[in-house]
């Protein structure tokens, strides 16, 4: 059997319908009329029922109207609250309008970005590339002054944003040029908790250690163009950790913060290491408060402990001119005591204010000094160092936007017990107390720009006094987060 084609089916249907229409008989018509009549009767009944119900409802409505009249006062209050609600709705609409104007794109969630440009013009008597701090094992950090003349310093590019309801992340990169090549340094990349209670905070990643006072401040926040000598000698200008930090703020009116960090300790005063676990530990406590409305203070005590192995440094040269590579292995402990005091009349720092700060460092290192005497010969001896340093500075804003400051730096090479080694072979570690005096004046037309002139007499090098002139500008672009105290 073959299937019906659609065309054929259509033709067949078209032929069938007229046949049905003509087939309707008179009997059918009568039946239809009967049905219509029944339908009409049934509708009549239903309409009557509806009319009865309507009448009942009208009676009830009359009753309700008297009730409504009685509730007249209630209604007026209702009108008032309606007006209130309307006013609120208008406000909500205004807010909604404001919200609607915001960009609804993904970029609304972009992290806040800030760029800090820092450039210097300097005049030095001594060669900055030959900079060293006599009496101290070199820290290997960027401790030297910038090059003579114009120099484009580090530009800091920073990003920060809340990641989600639990974490906030910060990233800060330093863009610089080293011997004509662009260099990107990772200054900070860390994540901190937002949701911990009881005053606890955890930070992990690379961060500036919470020890001391100045350590956590970025170079653009410094009151002078360069870091204190003590920071340069003891931490290679600042202690930067790769690790975890735990901090706790006490629930007291007096500010008390306790913190501890475990970190890799790959950098001075630690040394490169290839081992599991942590290589550097810190603990710190800060206490702070107000004296009246005009003064605020903070003091702190910090401890840094690490066990560097084969921490290398160079001093002197052999007969062929090759630098002699020495190394130290042992235990290094640093204590820091810091204070800062700020004064402003009635706490209003916009016209005049004073800031005095100082820190004292003490480091003890005991271990073995591996001493390169040239050629293949080496000597090892137990060694012991006890060194200290401090700085004290005061910055006074004498009128809006203008500040002057002075700073004194002192280091004491202290006692260096080289055991069986001949101290004459290590001229760098010969006893010497470096010092430096600096004075600066800066002008900040707004919170985002600063121009500075700094004069300094730097006696870091034994017998070579370096008179320095610095001109510096610092510019902050984009989101500029609030500074710490």
């Amino acid at each position: 059997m073959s299937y019906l084609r659609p065309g054929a089916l259509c033709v067949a249907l078209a032929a069938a319908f007229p046949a049905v229409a003509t087939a309707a008989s008179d009997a059918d018509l009568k039946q239809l009329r009967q049905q219509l009549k029944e339908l009409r009767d049934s509708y009549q009944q239903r309409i009557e029922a509806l009319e009865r119900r309507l009448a009942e409802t009208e009676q009830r409505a009359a009753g309700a109207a008297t009730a409504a009249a009685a509730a007249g006062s209630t209604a007026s209050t209702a009108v008032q609250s309606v007006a209130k609600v309307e006013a609120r709705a208008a406000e909500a609409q205004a807010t909604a309008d404001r919200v609607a104007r915001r960009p609804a794109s993904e970029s609304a969630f972009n992290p806040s970005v800030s760029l800090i440009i820092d450039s210097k013009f300097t005049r030095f008597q001594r060669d900055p590339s030959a900079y060293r701090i006599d009496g101290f094992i070199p820290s290997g950090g960027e401790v030297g002054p910038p090059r003579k003349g114009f120099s484009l310093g580090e530009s800091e590019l920073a990003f920060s944003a809340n990641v989600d309801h639990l974490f906030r992340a910060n990233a800060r990169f330093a863009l610089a040029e080293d011997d004509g090549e662009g260099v990107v340094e990772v200054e900070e990349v860390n994540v901190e908790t937002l949701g911990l209670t009881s005053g606890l905070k955890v930070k992990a990643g690379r961060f500036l250690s919470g020890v001391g006072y100045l350590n956590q401040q970025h170079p653009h926040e410094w009151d002078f163009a360069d870091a204190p000598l003590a920071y340069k000698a003891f931490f290679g200008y600042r202690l930067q950790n790769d690790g975890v930090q735990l901090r706790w703020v006490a629930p007291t009116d007096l500010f008390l913060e306790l913190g501890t960090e475990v970190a890799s300790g790959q950098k001075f005063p630690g040394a490169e290491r290839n081992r599991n676990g942590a290589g550097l530990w810190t603990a710190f406590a800060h206490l702070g408060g107000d004296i009246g409305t005009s003064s605020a203070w903070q003091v702190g005590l910090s401890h840094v402990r690490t066990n560097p192995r084969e921490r290398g440094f160079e001093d002197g040269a052999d007969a062929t001119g090759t630098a002699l590579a020495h190394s130290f292995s042992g235990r290094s402990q640093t204590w820091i005591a810091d204070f800062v005091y700020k004064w402003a009349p009635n706490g209003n720092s916009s016209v005049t204010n004073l800031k005095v700060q100082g820190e004292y460092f003490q480091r003890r290192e005991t271990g073995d000094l591996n001493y390169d005497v040239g050629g293949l010969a080496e000597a090892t001896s137990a060694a012991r160092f006890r060194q200290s340093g401090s700085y004290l500075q005061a910055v006074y804003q004498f009128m809006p936007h203008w500040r002057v400051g002075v700073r004194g730096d002192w280091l004491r090479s202290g006692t260096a017990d080289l055991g069986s080694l001949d101290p004459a072979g290590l001229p760098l570690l010969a006893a010497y107390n470096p010092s430096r005096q600096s004075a600066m004046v800066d002008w900040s037309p707004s919170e985002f720009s600063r121009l500075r002139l700094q004069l300094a007499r730097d006696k870091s090098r034994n017998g070579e006094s370096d008179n320095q002139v610095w001109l510096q500008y610092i510019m902050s672009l984009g989101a500029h987060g609030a500074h710490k105290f």
Partner: protein
Amino acid sequence: MYSKLMFHLAALLLAVLALPAAAALNVFATVPEWAALAKEIGGERVQVFSATNALQDPHRIEAKPSLIARARASQLVVATGADLEIGWLPVVLRESGNAAIQPGQPAYFEAASAVRLIEVPVRLDRADGDVHPGGNPHIQTDPRNVLKVAEALAGRMSRVDPAGAGAYSANLARFSERWKVAMVRWEQAAAPLRGVPVWVQHRSFAYLADWLGIKELGALEPKPGVEPGSAHLAGLLERQKATPARMILRAAYSRPTASDWLGDRAGIPVVVLPFTVGGSPTAADLVSLFDDTVQRLLGGLR
């Protein structure tokens, strides 16, 4: 030495933990006006701390250790918002380690969210000075705003401390009744100020001017947060000759130099307004703040 230090720290810690827990709701207000308002609404149930005083420039506050300590122990933060506290509050809140008071949480309240801000900048550029992207944040100079903030704050306090909801709404009702009566009084007294042209030191009184119909001819600051230079002031003096203002308004915390200079040259009074609670000896609470403000403005007319 190390163990001794640790012993002392442990002893200190114990002493700290042994402190009696405060029963009241600890409120951390960023500025005196919201501290006063929180006291009105909270009454006996709250312990209010004001982070700043009326003689401090609210734009230049530092994240002092004492503020971090107070934020740590607080259960509600009442801020102005609109970026007024951008220079210090974010650090204080983050450093406090108190998760409950972070922005977005119920215990973080911004007064500016309850009112409609004016002077919202149409372009954002730091070349325009210290601009606030959300609009002018000095909302407390209009009592109508204070009432709106009071209503929103009472709601928020009830949410943070549900046990005190009854007390907060009763206090709000009392406050708003008293406030409305006072507003009628101020508006009647200040009727002569309608349409009076004035100079302002900083755009601190935009809401006040809006409320009383005072006509602000302009600000002494060429741009928000920028000190006026002598050339700019000389230009204002010229404008003063063409369109004379009746007085110069400045807040209690601001520097007198520029306004006094112009006031002397133009021969018009410099009216120092309290700006917030505590800004003058008589402005001890919110009602007396506006009493004093209106009195001083009327004094400037004479």
